[in-house]
């Protein structure tokens, strides 16, 4: 609310300013030939009068702009004071619901227009009290739950107060319970809504449809094309992809404190807690109990309770009294049997207790079944097969039962818990239909948060060996070592599968050598100049990269043989979702220091490869540049180090897979180029690298690197076999 008024305040300020500006421009023209003294006077007087006028004009807005506290902005009224609307007996009645309605036939999607945020806008009609010709109210003005529901929508991102921009309209006429309203008059009330238009884009919420004696499974109020979010749809009345099946809210959700109980074996295997069950079903249930004894418990309502005890909260078996809903937590499976209506509030209680619902209601469309995978949280048993229910349940392995219990509880927490949860899930489903390309995925709807965090999702999950003909693009990051760079280019160009060479010129102070000076090679050579000398430039997804395989190579790596590089590419083709590199490195847990340590000793294990020369999928360049978590990218650029460790972390984290080290190569430094200051330089280097690992592990929140004990060699490597018959005879040394 506060925000809205703030905008208005700015508006007011603008009006004043704009006006005075105008005046200042026009002033001299209005009073052209006046003495300067008089002129000043008149100008002052005129502006005072004008300001006064403006102030009077703005009068109405003042209280709102001065007072930003909620007292002024939120309307405090009683429901009894809402305007009364009299419905003439002959006012129009909408058609009955059209069963063939689908989103593309009955829904006016143009009203949703183009919305960059891919979010529908929902308008709520203001509350009115409807009476007939005789002044008799049509229904309860509004129930607590419907008020909660409209409040939830109004507080959400979906809400708009601008009726002309709205895509979905929610009447404030409460139809949650059909029994509390007069059908014909309610329909007339709907029809006179200002944007009704045969119910197009109108959404009605109903939890208890039908009434005696035949209990229809959908709201009986004629509603034409309006969408219905209904509890208790059957497959006959549910318009797939148009209506939304919602839960019947259980008021106990808010009334009763029920601490969560984890999954696991419970006292009763199967429990029936519904008090009003048709005698035929009760017979079946009692037969089950007789057959399986203690494992099955069938409860009924209590008949001999003393006064003052809420009978809603008690259940009885013979003379034993149980607390409801607490007793649900004692059972592994709980029966959810249909009554007159298909949708039962007990489903919500059962899910909350982490009891797996056994739904016995033929043709019932389970709540939110469009998006929720009920197979993971419930067992559906046909009414006819009720007597077999026990054996059906027994065949489910214990591990799966626990999974279902967890899932049931999660469904309650996410979609059943409150009226708000129900309302927002309903709107999300409709939103997903209108903007399908921005819809939530199956996993987002169904996976509990614990699963979402723990799982990796490999972006390159399809087992696919790219064709050799595609080749790879070599990316050489260079600063100014031109001579060494040219040697690298010459060497790399000998690799048969090279298809393009990209030189990333990271030196802003010096121009790259002239075209004529570059080595002549058989593949295209492109030079990219960067704006800043950053290590991350090596992993930028340049448009020039046309192949999937990328070879990142430093401008001083001249020791790799052509066979070695070609073999590296062949290995990458078999593992296109991994980093394939030459020297391997390892991370270790330092028990003394209690942190990670970088290890470059020649060990039997490998968890990283150096990207001084490594093959990988170009998609990881995109990930590195745009999806690197936390401040890792900046850290790398600031420290001018560890870009390779960051890449190893990134790939391992997203794919959950280990690197592939190829060939015996252990280090890049050639024997003849000795380090300037060998040992001490080496040690600070190691400390810095260890620091990187610890930093990255804390940003990722986990240690994604995987340790393996294998490397890839050509099939006949070091085998007793004629060298000239081997595909990769010159595989290099350490």
């Amino acid at each position, binding site marked *: 609310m506060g925000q809205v008024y703030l905008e208005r305040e700015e508006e007011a300020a603008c009006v004043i300013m704009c006006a005075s500006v105008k005046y200042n421009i026009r002033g001299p023209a209005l009073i052209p030939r006046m003495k300067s003294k008089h002129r000043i006077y008149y100008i002052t007087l005129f502006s005072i009068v004008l300001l006064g006028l403006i102030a009077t004009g703005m009068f109405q807005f003042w209280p709102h702009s001065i007072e930003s506290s909620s007292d002024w902005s939120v309307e405090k009224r009683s429901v009894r004071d809402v305007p009364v609307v009299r419905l003439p007996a002959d006012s129009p009645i909408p058609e009955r619901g059209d069963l063939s309605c689908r989103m593309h036939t009955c829904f006016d999607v143009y009203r949703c227009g183009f919305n960059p945020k891919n979010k529908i806008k929902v308008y709520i009609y203001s509350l009115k009290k409807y009476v007939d010709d005789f002044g008799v109210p049509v229904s309860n003005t509004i129930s607590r739950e419907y008020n909660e529901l409209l409040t939830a929508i109004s507080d959400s991102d979906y809400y708009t107060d601008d009726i002309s921009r709205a895509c979905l309209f929610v009447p404030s006429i409460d139809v949650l319970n059909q029994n509390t309203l007069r059908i014909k008059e309610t329909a007339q009330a709907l029809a006179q809504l200002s944007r009704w238009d045969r119910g197009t884009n109108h959404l009605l919420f109903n939890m208890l449809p039908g009434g005696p004696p035949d209990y229809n499974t959908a709201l009986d109020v004629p509603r034409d094309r309006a969408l219905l979010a209904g509890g208790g749809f059957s497959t006959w009345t549910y318009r797939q992809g148009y209506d939304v099946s919602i839960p019947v809210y259980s008021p106990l959700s808010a009334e009763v404190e029920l601490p969560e109980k984890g999954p696991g074996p419970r006292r009763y295997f199967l429990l029936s807690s519904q008090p009003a069950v048709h005698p035929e079903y009760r017979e079946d249930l009692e037969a089950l109990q007789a057959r399986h004894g203690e494992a099955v418990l069938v409860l009924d*309502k209590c008949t001999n309770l003393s006064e003052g005890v809420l009978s809603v909260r008690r259940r009885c078996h013979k003379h034993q009294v149980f607390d409801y809903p607490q007793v649900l937590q004692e059972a592994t499976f709980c029966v959810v049997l249909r009554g007159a209506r298909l949708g039962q509030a007990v489903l919500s209680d059962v899910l909350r207790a982490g009891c797996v619902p056994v739904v016995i209601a033929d043709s019932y469309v389970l709540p939110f079944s469009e998006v929720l995978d009920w197979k993971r949280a419930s067992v559906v048993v*046909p009414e006819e097969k009720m007597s077999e229910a026990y054996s059906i349940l027994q065949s489910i392995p214990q591990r799966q039962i626990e999974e279902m219990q967890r899932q049931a509880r999660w469904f309650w927490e996410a979609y059943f818990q409150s009226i708000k949860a129900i309302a927002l899930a309903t709107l999300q489903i409709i939103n997903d239909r209108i903007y399908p390309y921005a819809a939530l995925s199956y996993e987002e709807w169904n996976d509990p948060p614990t699963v979402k965090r723990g799982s990796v999702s490999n972006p390159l999950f399809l087992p696919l060996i790219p*064709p050799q003909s595609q080749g790879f693009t070599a990316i050489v990051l260079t600063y100014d070592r031109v001579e060494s760079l040219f040697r690298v280019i010459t060497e790399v160009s000998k690799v048969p599968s090279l298809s393009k060479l990209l030189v990333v010129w990271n030196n802003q102070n010096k121009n790259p050598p002239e075209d004529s000076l570059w080595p002549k090679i058989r593949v295209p050579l492109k030079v990219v100049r960067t704006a800043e000398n950053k290590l991350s430039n090596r992993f930028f997804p340049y448009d020039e990269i046309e192949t999937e395989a990328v070879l990142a190579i430093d401008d001083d790596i001249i020791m790799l043989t052509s066979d070695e590089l070609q073999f590296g590419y*062949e290995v990458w083709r078999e593992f296109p979702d991994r980093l394939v590199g030459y020297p391997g490195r390892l991370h270790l847990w330092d028990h003394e220091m209690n942190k990670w340590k970088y290890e470059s000793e020649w060990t039997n294990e490998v968890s990283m490869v150096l990207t001084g020369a490594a093959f990988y999928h170009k998609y990881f360049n995109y990930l590195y540049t745009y999806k690197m978590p936390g401040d890792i990218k900046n850290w790398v650029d600031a420290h001018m180090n560890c870009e390779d460790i960051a890449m190893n972390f990134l790939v391992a984290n997203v794919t959950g897979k280990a690197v592939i080290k190829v060939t015996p190569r252990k280090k890049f430094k050639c024997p003849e180029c000795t380090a300037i200051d060998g040992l001490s330089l080496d040690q600070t280097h190691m400390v810095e690298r260890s620091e990187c690992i610890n930093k990255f592990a804390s940003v990722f929140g986990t240690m994604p690197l995987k340790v393996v004990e294998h490397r890839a*060699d050509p099939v006949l490597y070091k085998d007793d076999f004629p060298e000239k018959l081997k595909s990769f005879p010159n595989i290099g040394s350490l």
Partner: protein
Amino acid sequence: MQSWRGKSLWLALSASWLLILLRVFPLLRLAVPARPWASAPQGWPRWLDTELLPSFSQPGELPEDAPQPPQAPRGGGCDWGACFDASKCRTGGLKVFVHPVAGPISASHRKILASIESSRYHTASPEEACLLLFLSLEVPAGECSPVPQQWNGGRNHLVLDLHPAPCPQTFQLGRAMVAKASPTVDTFRPGFDVALPLLPEAHPLRGGAPGQLRQHSPHPGVPLLALAEERGGWRTAGTDPSTCPWDGRCEQDRGPEQTHPGGTLPNATFCLIPGHRPDALHFLQALQAGCIPVLLSPRWELPFSEVIDWTKAAIVADERLPFQVLAALQEMPLTRVLALRQQTQFLWDAYFSSVEKVMHTTLEIIQDRIFGASAHASLLWNSPPGALLALPTFSTSLSDFPFYHLQWGSRPVGRFSALIWVGAPGQPPLKLIQAVAGSQNCAQVSDRFFPHRAISTDAILSLDAHSSVTTSEVDFAFLVWQSFPERMVGFLTWNHFWDEAQGGWGYTAERANEFSMVLTSAAFYHRYYHTLFTHSLPKALRTLADETPTCVDILMNFLVAAVTKLPPIKVPYGKQHFEATPPLVPGGPEPQPTARDCINQMAAGFGYMPLVSSRLRLDPVLFKDPVSVLRKKYRSLEKP
């Protein structure tokens, strides 16, 4: 002067009036009780008497919901619970009987019959069957196939209808389910009917063309959009929104575009498919091509929508918002494009590429309905290798399968069982047992042929009595297998090749730079492949393998390669003199002619050649490096 004073007075007066306006009136305004501002933005009001509002249902009303007797299904409508009797299937398993077809049948029908007969659910006796299949035939318009005998009101019947022009509804369906190609959404009964893909006449019986996707990410040069044309071809179009590429009415400049004749596959990132039913044929083409289908308000149900999560592979958009759709496609994040593309390929290969796959998927869906709680989890249907290859009868826990460890970044725990097959009774291979049992990872040694129940570990080390392996070789190989649990990890390899001279496949045991099979006489693999071997392979192939022992190796390699689409893994093997040919086949390194036939028969049985070659071997990190032996963990691997 006077005028000056007067003016000052006026000025002072006006100024004080302004002051009053600014200062005093708001105070007065505050004193006045607040009146709701008529058009102020408000949202839903906070009512003063929220607490007093009645609940939508009175306590007691909810639980006391009037009881109602069981109801019969209304209006002749059917759903699974009401119209299908699953009790027979639950006791005897799903058994499918096909009503014999009277009269001449077309080639496509023959394919359907053949594929159902090859299914493990097929039975020849109608008494045993719990699902009866009725093939609706192509008949002159207006007529319908006669109702078969034992129709029984359509109970437990599945009517297969693969033609876009269906038999008019005069045909009394009764309680029968309908499996129809691209059914219209209005007549489709979710959870009861099965939506089939609209197959072209020439769809292969088995095997089928592999997906066209050669790389994970779209090639930078590929156009964004291809548009399905009415005549059956594809037109690639520019992406300038002003040209509205799929609307024939606007005849403006459409930008660079090309028209491709019918039958060719589209080469674009997205394929726009209009919603009319004949366009359903385009859907499969797009899927095969790895072109993400963008369906504009389809009037037909997507194939196998009951189990396949199409939001992972296609985009269903509203045809009335073309510019929004176009903008959304252009702005779609790369990660999503990648995922959608790969999913199209996986789905094509898993469920659509052959008539056999389509029919088996149909039966698998019905089997899943019967299973209820122990059916395939959604993940099994929607991630490689797909539900036809991940059998829920094996386990309902995903970590028991070899396929999902790598997807989750985990690895199988536990140890392995060594399985030694002994051909003829004789001296037990004591030395071998000793060597294998020496491994600390070995849980049990058994010498029976494929004893499913007795094997308790995920990993199996398959050996035969003549194999010779050392403990450290076994240890290293097991470690490698844990990193690649879905593949076979072996010591000895064969390679297959296309023999131009013979016009068929051949294979060789000679040492080469490539390999595509590992011998089961010494190999690690997942225990699940035993289940798959026994339950999913066609009987004919298994008989062939039983008759020719060499074929067992080939068949096992075919099976694993067909499931994983990846080559096996070779690990170093010390015994250089060991002959790679199985000892059961006497003769030189060249396999015998019968064995050569074997690979061709397998390829025919699978419908294609699933084997994939590899050029690498996984060695220990310090393998044969010139470093101190003491550093090395697997020293004994390097002994000559």
